[in-house]
């Protein structure tokens, strides 16, 4: 195995029966830890207490739980005011509605104002499933990336999600974390390194580097392990922070492998793949393949079914890696 010991991943990484939990659960746990440490942490909720995993926070900190109803624009703009008053508001909704619906308030009232608001976007990706395209946020990274002052994080599992939700409280300035509704493999541990802005190499390799974020990092690892049996040595980098991109890690991956594949449950336009491509075009032009949603809307279906349908499952990732490798060797 070329899985790095320093990554401290679970031992049953490839077990098809690996325990699964949604990353949104990690938010619910992390914000409580943050609130215990800092009395200024408050949660603002837009009529989605349970599904954004705020029930426990509400129970433990009733005076710091603010219900605003179905008012996503207010969620963002009101939180800017709370932050101006010294609070650290975690504003919670489905990503489609905030930052989606509230984009201009996020951009102007939070980011241009440069206030300490934490945007919690649940229900990202097509894995939202049966609710269909209206509720599947697959453009959220793209609409957030061009905004100055924002930090963007996509945690890879529930353990990392908890760490991220806790860490942003002490990270001054506007942050956006995207979470997912559906259960996904729990494959990192408490010991797995997590530092905002610092990508973690989970697997070493020299033929192709996969740079991934969110729960598809697990698919990337499975793909890499399977490809090892086919003779390809694939690096896997968990780039949980999309902005600021860990350019050092991306450059290292490009220089080591000379071909990269980006993997994300997001439109291939403007997401992690775009961030990597924009950086490498300047720093070190490198062959790149993109795994993500191919410029179409999602639709109803079972979560895993949709991940496969839109080309983000293990076979699709393997295909992209092979293609990148072929392009590299036939250059």
């Amino acid at each position, binding site marked *: 195995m070329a899985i790095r010991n320093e990554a401290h991943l679970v031992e049953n990484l490839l077990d098809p029966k690996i325990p699964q939990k949604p990353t949104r659960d990690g938010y619910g746990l992390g914000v409580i830890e943050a609130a215990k440490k800092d009395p200024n942490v408050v949660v603002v909720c837009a009529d989605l207490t349970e599904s954004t995993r705020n029930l426990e926070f509400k129970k433990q900190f009733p005076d710091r739980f603010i219900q605003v109803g179905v008012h996503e624009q207010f969620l963002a703009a009101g939180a800017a005011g709370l932050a101006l*008053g010294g609070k650290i508001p975690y504003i919670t909704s489905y990503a489609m509605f905030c930052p989606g619906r509230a984009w201009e308030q996020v951009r102007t*009232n939070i980011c241009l104002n440069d206030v300490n608001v934490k945007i919690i976007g649940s229900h990202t990706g097509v894995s939202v499933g049966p609710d269909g395209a209206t509720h599947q946020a697959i453009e959220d990274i793209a609409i957030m990336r061009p905004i100055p002052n924002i930090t963007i994080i996509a945690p890879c599992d529930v353990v990392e999600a908890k760490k991220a939700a806790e860490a942003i409280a002490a990270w001054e300035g506007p942050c956006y974390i995207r979470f997912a509704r559906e259960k996904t493999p729990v494959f990192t541990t408490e010991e797995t390194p997590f530092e905002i802005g610092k990508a973690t190499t989970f697997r070493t390799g020299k033929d192709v580097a996969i740079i991934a974020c969110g729960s598809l990092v697990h698919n990337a690892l499975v793909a890499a392990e399977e490809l090892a049996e086919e003779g390809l040595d694939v690096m896997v980098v968990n780039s949980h922070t999309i902005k600021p991109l860990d350019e050092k890690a991306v450059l290292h991956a490009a220089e080591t492998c000379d071909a990269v594949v980006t993997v994300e449950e997001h439109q291939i336009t403007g997401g992690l793949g775009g961030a990597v491509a924009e950086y490498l075009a300047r720093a070190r032009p490198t062959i790149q393949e993109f795994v993500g949603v191919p410029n179409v809307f999602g639709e109803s279906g079972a979560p895993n079914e949709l991940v496969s349908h839109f080309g983000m499952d293990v076979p699709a990732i393997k295909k992209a890696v092979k293609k990148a490798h072929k392009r590299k060797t036939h250059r």
Partner: protein
Amino acid sequence: MAHVSDKRIKELEIIANTLRRHVIEMVAHAGSGHQGGPLGMADVFAVLYFHALNHDPKKPDWEDRDRLILSNGHTCPIRYAAMAEAGYFPVEELKTLRRLGTRLQGHPERAKLPGAETTSGPLGAGLAQAAGLAYAGKMDKKKWRVFCQTSDGEHEAGLHWEAMLFAGKNRLDNLVCIVDRNNIQIDGRTEDIMPLEPLAEKYRAFNWHVLECDGNSVSAVVDALEATKSLFDKPICVLTHNVPGKGVSYMENNFLWHSQPFKPGEAEAAVNELKSVGEKLEAEYAKL
């Protein structure tokens, strides 16, 4: 209610007139910007900065200050003029309005100008921020209050009504929303574009106190803002009935002066008119 002497009222009128001159001169110097709204709001801003607000121009970040959120950010020339006269920055700096590198952006920016409190311009977002701030103040049992200056036209934005609901629900009596009810917006009269009336009744229906006054009468504005201190348990709306372009006869009540460049001679004529009003006010003051 605190008694305010006739002499003090006259002083505030003189200040309001000075602010109007600054507005004309700075917008003329910049070559663009908004005149009608700021002129109509000059009396309110004179009362805010020189009577109502608990603030310290030398310490814009003073923790216990009252917060003034300017929601209709395009009217910032009047705020800049009032801040300069109050001592936040030199009056000379008003000439930098809208120039590259200025702290006096075309729409105000918190990060650039200490005391601006928020970044604003996109309409309808000020009350939401003011309500969030007032909520934070209540959580921490602070004594300071939040004033939010809004335009009437921006009441068409849905976000404003979201904020009205939130403030009403949470009984934010440390929040005062001042409405520049001047009946104009860019495309014409508010009641033609999208009728707002009965506006006072709408606020009341959203669980707000409502006060109304002649916003171009300094003494009426002083009385209204004093009266807000005795209202509890609900947020407070002060509908100030203002004449857009007030003080410059060719601008008054003409919606085209929401914002349009001066033609040659227009700014000078406006300044001259305001100068003569200023002389009259000074003469009246001397007799008190």
